[in-house]
């Protein structure tokens, strides 16, 4: 039975439970609501949730576990010598999965009957054509062991699906029955529903945490994989970045980190003063009317996709800088793509970010602080410099660090504004590149996924992740400390 049907049935059962649980509770209470421990709807909810939630839980876990179990069983049965020389078992297994899914689809569409499907022969009908017909084209002809494995896969999966249906419906019915029978006037349905809701919320939170964990783990494993085939000391200490897909490449992170760092510094040098000053103007000096107009305008800037900023860098800022610093002018800039171009544009992108965060933080400084200062005869700028900014400083530093981690993670502006040359140079008008931009270029080639040239992307990502995580933790720590300041 397809999963969708199971969900629908469980939902129907839950609805039924809701409408049966209520009157049952009322009946056991002799029709008097005050005789019940909880309001009648809670008894309904209790039955409904008891039918639905455990059943859905079983369904979810079953789906995760089944695909894993089936895959590993089939893989274990697969004859090792049948793996083609230029392929790995996992590649063959994904072929098996495709074939099995294709045959399933063909049966469901009625292209072939179930018996025909079970009797498919490699030599007989052309399986490749059959699968192409249902929209599952294969790269090569199906070989005998793959077909056998696919048939085993199908058999296991179909048994699994049947068992799944039984289990899910069984749990739903059990939950329904259990909750329904428990329904009487003294049963504490409200407390049970309350804890049920709490469990749901906890599960949602766990899911978010687990996803993060999953992402980190996949990064970690691939990074370890990379360091097995490429020495970590080279990666961190080498000063050249020269990947060559034929092998023998030098993959030193230093030029990329330098580019990232250089561009981010320029971006922050642009964004922090402008953003901070505009925040101070908006929160301390601007009249309510100006503020109501200017604040949304600045925030529009934050909504522009970074690719648009990239175009701006490529088409406007780059040429502009060349006309001043290029061969016709100062003569230190070769082309429009340069650290300066990307840094300036990235700085513009970060202005609204810094300004609106700082604005919120400055506004959070209580009016009583300003009154205290004005009451002692301080001017506006004295008050800002000596009372408001010191009180808001930790929060502002937090905002700047958040902006820094955005600058470090930015890709599009770098690709279009700074070029692709990995280089260690002090000249801000040279083309350079960053870690993120190189991750993209390492993964968007035809490179073999197991080669160091591709796997290095994970090591780069991991390094970046550690750096931005560090910055974010620092920012959070500072912001949290700041909260206790003026209480």
């Amino acid at each position: 039975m397809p999963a969708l049907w199971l969900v629908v049935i469980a939902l129907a059962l839950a609805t039924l439970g809701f409408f049966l649980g209520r009157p049952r509770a009322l009946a056991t209470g002799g029709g008097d609501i005050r005789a019940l421990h909880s309001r009648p709807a809670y008894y309904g909810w209790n039955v409904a949730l008891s039918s639905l939630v455990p059943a859905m839980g079983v369904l979810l876990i079953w789906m995760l576990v089944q695909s894993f179990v089936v895959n590993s069983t089939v893989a274990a049965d697969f004859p090792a010598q049948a793996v083609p020389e230029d392929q790995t078992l996992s590649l063959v297994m994904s072929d098996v999965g495709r074939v099995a899914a294709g045959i399933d689809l063909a049966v469901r569409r009625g292209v072939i009957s179930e018996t025909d499907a079970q009797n498919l022969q490699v030599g007989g009908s052309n399986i490749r054509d059959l699968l192409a017909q249902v929209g599952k084209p294969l790269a090569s002809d199906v070989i005998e062991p793959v077909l056998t494995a696919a048939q085993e896969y199908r058999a296991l999966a179909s048994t699994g699906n049947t068992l799944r249906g039984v289990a899910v419906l069984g749990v739903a019915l059990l939950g329904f029955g259990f909750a329904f029978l428990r329904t009487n006037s003294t049963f504490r349905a409200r407390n049970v529903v309350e804890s049920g809701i709490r469990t749901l919320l906890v599960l949602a939170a766990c899911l978010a945490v687990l996803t993060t964990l999953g992402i980190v783990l996949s990064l970690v494993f691939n990074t370890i994989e990379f360091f097995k085939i490429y020495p970590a000391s080279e990666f961190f200490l080498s000063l050249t970045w020269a990947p060559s897909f034929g092998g023998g490449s030098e993959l030193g992170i230093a030029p990329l980190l330098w580019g990232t760092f250089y561009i981010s510094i320029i971006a922050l040098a642009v964004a922090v003063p402008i953003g901070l000053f505009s925040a101070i103007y908006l929160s301390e000096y601007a009249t309510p009317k100006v503020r109501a107009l200017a604040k949304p305008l600045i925030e529009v800037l934050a909504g522009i996709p970074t690719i648009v900023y990239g175009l701006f860098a490529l088409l406007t800022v780059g040429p502009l800088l060349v006309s001043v610093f290029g061969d016709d002018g100062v003569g230190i800039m070769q082309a429009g793509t340069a650290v300066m171009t990307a840094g300036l544009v990235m700085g513009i992108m970060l202005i609204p970010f810094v300004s609106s965060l700082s604005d919120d933080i400055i506004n959070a400084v209580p009016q009583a602080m300003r009154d205290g200062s004005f009451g002692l005869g301080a001017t506006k700028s004295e008050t800002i410099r000596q009372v408001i900014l010191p009180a808001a400083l930790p929060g502002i530093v937090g905002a700047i660090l958040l902006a820094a981690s955005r600058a470090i993670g930015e890709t599009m502006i770098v690709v279009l504004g700074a070029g692709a040359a990995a280089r260690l140079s002090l000249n801000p008008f040279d083309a350079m590149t960053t870690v993120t931009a190189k991750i993209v270029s390492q993964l968007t080639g035809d490179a073999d996924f197991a080669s160091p040239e591709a796997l290095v992307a994970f090591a780069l990502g991991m390094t970046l992740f550690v750096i931005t995580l560090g910055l974010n933790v620092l920012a959070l720590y500072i912001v949290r400390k700041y909260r206790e300041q003026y209480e």
Partner: protein
Amino acid sequence: MYDTPILEKPVDQKDIKFAARGVQVYYGDNHAIKDVDVDLEDKTVTAFIGPSGCGKSTFLRCLNRMNDTIDVCRVEGDIQLDGEDIYDKRVDPVQLRAKVGMVFQKPNPFPKSIYDNVAYGPRIHGLAGNKAELDEIVEKSLRRAAIWGEVKDRLDAPGTGLSGGQQQRLCIARAVATEPEVLLMDEPCSALDPIATAQVEELIDELRENYSVVIVTHSMQQAARVSQKTAFFHLGNLVEFGETSHIFTNPTDERTESYITGRIG
């Protein structure tokens, strides 16, 4: 304020420090102060009493233009300090506030050290030539506010870490440190124990020798103890103003009598 020659007058005859005529204050549509006329004398303690929400703080804030910082607030009428209209365009509210200090109803120490809180005003106005002088000002101010003994060992600790009553006295010290000519105190003893209250009252008495003090209080006893003049506010009106002894023994208006005997409030 711009400079004007102040006429020399005999010391025993008390000058009028603040002269208010026809003062109206609006918070948007809320008419908070209604047509108040009052003369506050120099070297005198004036107490403002009245039920909660009657406009005592609002009127007090008019005297050093703190209401300027509230967008919805509008002040009309004429208030003169030493014969100069303080709402005149040529008057710089910043300089006015240096002359007319204020202790707020809610203690509002800066998130700085105790020392920096008190040194804030003297630093801004350049009252101390060097560090030693500044130290002296800070110690003297803290002593006058009756908190020196409690904080002398932790002048570097944040002012926000003090108890409510200590913060209140720290704010008094902060206001006294700038040596204002007039000190406006909005319920300065609301969070103080009787001993600290007595010490602050002593300070007020001492300040009276050179300055004029306006104190808002909800304690009739305190008003009677420290003030020479008392103003009774009710629903935004100045109902009665006169000698403290007179107001407390022989009030003219029946609303004043009801209030001081505890029947309205």
